[in-house]
């Protein structure tokens, strides 16, 4: 059951690329990002109210810790730009490649105060397979 739920969560992530892309086509890249974030904000406020969640320790935290939402704008913007040109599956595949490479760089250098975990050269094999898969996906029919 939990495995199925994990698959569904992945499917929903792909759904977001497609749904956000459609809003982007209707409202333009910038207005669509406002609409998408506003609806998400309303949803999370509803969750907080239902759970009667409290906010604590906000002032002690450095400002950069609040920057994730700003980085998220780049995600929405770039996904919307590529969605129309490449479709969902190729956008997702390239995004996953970008995620893997970034994770490895951060782990290798221990950025953001995370523990260092050196790059294992065996992973080059994995990357070759991923690249080969993406090339096959991108080939014109």
């Amino acid at each position, binding site marked *: 059951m939990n495995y199925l739920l994990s698959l569904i969560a992945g499917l929903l992530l792909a759904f977001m690329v497609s749904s956000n892309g459609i809003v982007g086509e209707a409202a333009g890249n910038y207005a669509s990002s406002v609409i998408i974030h506003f609806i998400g904000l309303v949803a999370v406020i509803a969750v907080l109210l239902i759970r009667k969640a409290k906010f604590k320790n906000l002032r002690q935290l450095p400002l950069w810790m609040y920057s994730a*939402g700003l980085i998220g704008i780049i995600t929405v913007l770039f996904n919307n730009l590529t969605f129309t040109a490449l479709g969902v599956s190729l956008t997702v595949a390239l995004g996953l490649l970008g995620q893997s490479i970034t994770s490895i760089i951060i782990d290798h250098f221990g950025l953001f105060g995370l523990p260092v975990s050196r790059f294992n050269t065996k992973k080059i094999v994995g990357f070759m397979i*991923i690249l080969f898969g993406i090339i096959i996906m991108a080939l014109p029919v």
Partner: protein
Amino acid sequence: MYITLAILAGVSIVLSRIVNYVLADKIGLFQGTFFNYLTGFIGSFILLLVSGETMKLFSINSYQGSWWAYLGGIVGVGVIALSSFLSSKISAFYLTLLLFVGQLFGGMVLDYMVSNDFSIQKIIGGVLVVIGLGYNLWIDAKNNKASTEIEKNNQVSSI
């Protein structure tokens, strides 16, 4: 051009996920998610004002897409809740791998539904991408197990 943008979107996902993870660790998951959408909303709004497309926010045409397409924000909050629930139930290895599989094959189903775009190549390519991602994930999982049992799941790929 589009290929670079799609890869950079992936880079931005990891960066925001790490920052969200650090914040959620301090103030709670949904409190962190609240600030994620709040700063995202404010930032987008400023960008919209600068772009000169502000009127599009109030134009009827902007709301003429299929109604379900506007649920993306709600789905985003749902996925955050679901992943946090699942991360306590199954190993990071299976969760991440199944998220990959769900995204890639969900993407293919959506391509077919939205633009009737379907090909055997996409399936073969998608299977290869999953094999490659899964292989690297498996190497991480093996190393984590070998190093320290206490400090497992400390790599970015499992956040």
